[in-house]
């Protein structure tokens, strides 16, 4: 018997390490013959810490939300989830379906294997794809297979992978580079982290295959420094692969050499742009340059270079083993295969979901994500992060693929989906993203550097209740100029969050500017806390108010002094009678 405890960053953050050591301690004390192992993130982050129990017949019983104090009970019930046992930690049928409704290609091994043990990966077919490639296929064959699969770059732009590989292959040169962008800059997407932490070998294998296809013998993984666990697991995986002869010289006796190294990024969103990433690899400020020449011709140290992101590479071994056609059979005509989405925000069952392209937003948010937290009203979903847009509830039946999402003004991007309810202010969301792009603009293009700053100032004014007639039009004009006047994708897409919120939620902008109210009651200057007749005079709010703004006798209706109130929200939080409302 063995138990496997999910230890990705999110599992650890919910206490998985403590749960694991409690299991180890109790198993030792009781002299039980049970192994305790680790795995990465299975994707259902809202159920962490997750404990998978395999009996001697390899039959799985999954326990969820297991804290150290639950360990004893679970051990004493012999991990049983049969009817009649206390099964508060057993996964429910409904939660099980969250995983069953998905189609897992990229995440095929995440949550199943021990990421720090290469034999777990090879036992599930790992490193067979590279063996097949090296012994049976030419680089052209590999590229042809990628073309059949229809795989498009999963980092954001959605450019066909085979096309980039072909360009890098056709550029002559004995020294070429295969680079993985693991800098996952979109604030709100975490699929790359999950693959790096949960299945690093699939990335490594994908990179070796890509390296062979374009004729590169060296690979570099550019990984963000905020992901220390990912870097650690990559290092372990690379060392194990080297030891087994999957990295290094003369792989599988084919004469092909390939090795990898990691470069830790230093925190710059603009480094998601290929030429900026290359500048950063060369130790410079991460500033983009004009294209052409494209990296496929002149990249890292002016040598032909190909860059893909983590999720793209993780698809590659699966495509080689199962055939491009079976990948292409999933998804839609132009957006083939599956895509991982990071569901977060005001969603009940947040986590990673991988589904065929073309599934509607409604299916993803309601059927898999379980709907909106606290059963509130669904208002919008933000896709594509700072380059993307807010999609309103009225478009919830839009199929999620590159074409359809692009048509409504957002982008699939790297797959972040931030769900929002009626308490989220759309003007504030636009302000949030402009604050982000303003900070992250590298400063090379005037329109991006100064224009985002001006847009942010206007949005800040509006959210503070100081909006003026003409602000919306000014924002639209600036947006157009910034798009036209910026060289790279950051500036060209930075106005998108503003444009989509104006397009779909213009009434909220108008409410702020002309009526001095925040529709969502979230902008502090534009609403008041008011105590209603529901107040029982329990005095809890008055006692908790940090600025003594609440007056009232015991068992009498209380009143908030609006001149003193700082709108910290403490009273609303502590009131047990829902007597405090935002007006």
């Amino acid at each position: 018997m063995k138990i496997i405890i999910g230890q990705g960053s999110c599992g650890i953050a919910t206490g998985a390490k403590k749960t694991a050591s409690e299991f180890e301690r109790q198993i030792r004390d009781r002299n039980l013959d049970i192994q305790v192992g680790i795995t990465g993130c299975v994707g259902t982050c809202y159920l962490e810490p997750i404990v998978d129990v395999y009996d001697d017949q390899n039959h799985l019983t999954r326990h969820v939300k297991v804290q150290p104090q639950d360990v004893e009970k679970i051990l004493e019930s012999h991990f049983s989830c049969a009817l009649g046992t206390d099964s508060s930690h057993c996964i429910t049928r409904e939660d099980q379906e969250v995983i069953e409704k998905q189609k897992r290609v990229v995440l095929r091994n995440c949550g199943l294997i021990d990421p720090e043990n290469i034999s777990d990966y090879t036992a599930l077919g790992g490193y067979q794809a590279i063996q097949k490639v090296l012994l049976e296929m030419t680089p052209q064959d590999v590229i042809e297979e990628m073309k059949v699969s229809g795989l498009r770059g999963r980092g954001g732009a959605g450019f066909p992978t085979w096309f980039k590989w072909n360009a890098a292959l056709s550029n002559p040169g004995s020294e070429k580079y295969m680079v993985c962008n693991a800098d996952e800059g979109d604030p709100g997407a975490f699929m790359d982290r999950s693959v790096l932490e949960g299945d690093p070998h699939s990335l490594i294998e994908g990179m070796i295959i890509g390296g062979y296809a374009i004729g590169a013998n060296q690979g570099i993984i550019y990984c963000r420094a905020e992901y220390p666990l990912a870097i650690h697991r990559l290092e372990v995986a690379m060392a194990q692969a080297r030891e087994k002869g999957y990295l290094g010289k003369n792989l599988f006796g084919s004469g092909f050499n390939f090795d990898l190294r990691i470069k830790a990024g230093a925190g710059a969103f603009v480094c998601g742009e290929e030429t900026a990433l290359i500048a950063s690899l060369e130790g410079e400020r991460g500033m983009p340059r004009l294209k052409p020449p494209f990296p496929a011709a002149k990249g890292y140290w002016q040598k032909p270079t190909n860059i893909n992101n983590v999720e793209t590479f993780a698809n590659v071994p699966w495509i080689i083993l199962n055939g491009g056609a079976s990948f292409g059979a999933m998804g839609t005509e132009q957006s083939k295969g599956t895509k991982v989405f990071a569901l977060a925000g005001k969603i009940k069952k947040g986590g990673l979901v991988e589904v065929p392209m073309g599934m509607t937003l409604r299916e993803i948010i309601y059927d898999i994500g379980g709907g909106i937290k606290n059963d509130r009203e669904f208002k919008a979903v933000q896709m594509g992060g700072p380059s993307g847009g807010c999609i309103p509830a009225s478009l919830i039946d839009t199929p999620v693929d590159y074409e359809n999402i692009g048509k409504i003004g957002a982008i699939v991007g790297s797959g972040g989906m931030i769900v929002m309810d009626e308490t989220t202010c759309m003007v504030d969301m636009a302000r949030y993203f402009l604050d982000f792009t303003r900070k992250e603009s590298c400063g090379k293009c005037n329109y991006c550097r100064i224009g985002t700053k001006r847009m942010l100032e206007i949005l800040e004014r509006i959210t503070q209740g100081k909006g003026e007639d003409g602000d919306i039009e000014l924002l639209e004009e600036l947006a157009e100029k910034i798009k036209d006047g910026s060289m790279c994708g950051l500036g060209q897409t930075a106005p998108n969050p503003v444009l989509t919120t104006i397009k779909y939620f213009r009434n909220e902008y108008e409410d702020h500017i002309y009526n001095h109210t925040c529709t969502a009651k979230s902008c502090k200057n534009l609403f008041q806390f008011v105590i209603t007749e529901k107040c029982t005079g329990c005095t809890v709010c008055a006692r908790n108010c940090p600025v003594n703004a609440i007056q009232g006798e015991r068992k009498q209706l209380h009143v908030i002094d609006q001149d003193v109130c700082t709108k910290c929200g403490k009273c609303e939080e502590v009131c047990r009678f829902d007597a405090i409302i935002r007006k």
Partner: protein
Amino acid sequence: MSDFKELAPVLDQYGRVPGSLITILQKAQDIYGYLSKETIEYIADATGIKPAKIYGVATFYAQFRQEPIGKYLIMMCKGTACHVNGADLIEEAVTEHLGIRDGETTEDGVFTLNNVACLGCCSLAPVMMVKSNEGEETYGNLTKDTVKSILDEIKGRSQEGIAV
């Protein structure tokens, strides 16, 4: 004044390798906690890279600091999911509790608060990571109250450390 002998192995390994400036700065920051003017000048002398260029790189990337930090670095996640779930309120609570804002260090040198773009734990939003010599720990599903008790607990731990 430091003679920078801790940097010698780093400079031996990377000093003459083209394109290694960011790696050298990262390792220097790991050793000294931040990049002082003296550190930058020392690296410039040792590598032949102009101080202005090093300063340019050091100020471009969010990771590099030009000021010393406290024993515990609070990395407050400001990603989209955290924003939607009230990260600003959590930051306010930290500011209220410790009296420091983004980029500042407490007078006793225990905590530094830094806002970061995204920690990638979006389904546990709001989230923060606390980094120190002991390693890093991530805390999720924060509320104004839990963040205060977490910080108190860490502070208690740091004082025990001094007593021992």
